[in-house]
């Protein structure tokens, strides 16, 4: 089945130690999004790629970066994780155009910072 895959599902990192989260898709969608969801809160968009074009949200900290080496893969890099970065990180994809618009979400990666 076509889907959005996130690895790992659970990630533990130390304060200040760089960490990379991975997302892949078999949907061949143009747009890939990264959301941060803290406990009992709504998902908050960090940034997205429309094809190769990177679009950062205005309030996304510089500590968060992303790479999209090809259509299928997108990575979230946290350069120096702080305790406040502990959250569920959700990857989503969409075609980006047309009335069939819908975002498809992966299962998420839960990040713990010790």
């Amino acid at each position, binding site marked *: 089945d076509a889907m959005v895959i996130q690895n790992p599902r659970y990630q533990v990192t130390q304060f200040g130690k760089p960490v990379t989260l991975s997302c892949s898709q078999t949907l061949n969608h143009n747009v890939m999004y990264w959301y941060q969801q803290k406990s009992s*809160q709504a998902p908050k*968009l960090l940034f997205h790629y429309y094809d190769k074009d990177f679009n950062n949200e205005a309030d996304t900290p510089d500590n968060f970066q992303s790479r999209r080496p090809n259509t299928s893969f997108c990575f979230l890099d946290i350069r120096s994780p702080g305790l406040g970065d502990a959250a569920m990180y959700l990857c989503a994809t969409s075609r980006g155009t047309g009335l069939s*618009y819908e975002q498809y979400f992966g299962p998420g990666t839960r990040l713990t910072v010790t």
Partner: protein
Amino acid sequence: AQSVTQLDSQVPVFEEAPVELRCNYSSSVSVYLFWYVQYPNQGLQLLLKYLSGSTLVKGINGFEAEFNKSQTSFHLRKPSVHISDTAEYFCAVSDLEGAQKLVFGQGTRLTINP
């Protein structure tokens, strides 16, 4: 800019009772409207969406929602809930163009009691 308000943070109901989860939105432009469900430690799954046409939208798992433009509301309903409906429900809006970024409400935790 768009915003979404979910009027109830928690809704407890008994099994087989009807339920309504309320959602109001604010936007200066036309929007698409969505309801997503999130089960514990999982990603978001689309329940239903309003893009255009009939204001009554039917989704998966017996849920439906009605778009009311004059009241800027998009309330979610189910006539008879089951234990398996226990989850977090998010209302969201997106604009019609570009990458169609989602703006989520704070979520409503639906708890079904036997």
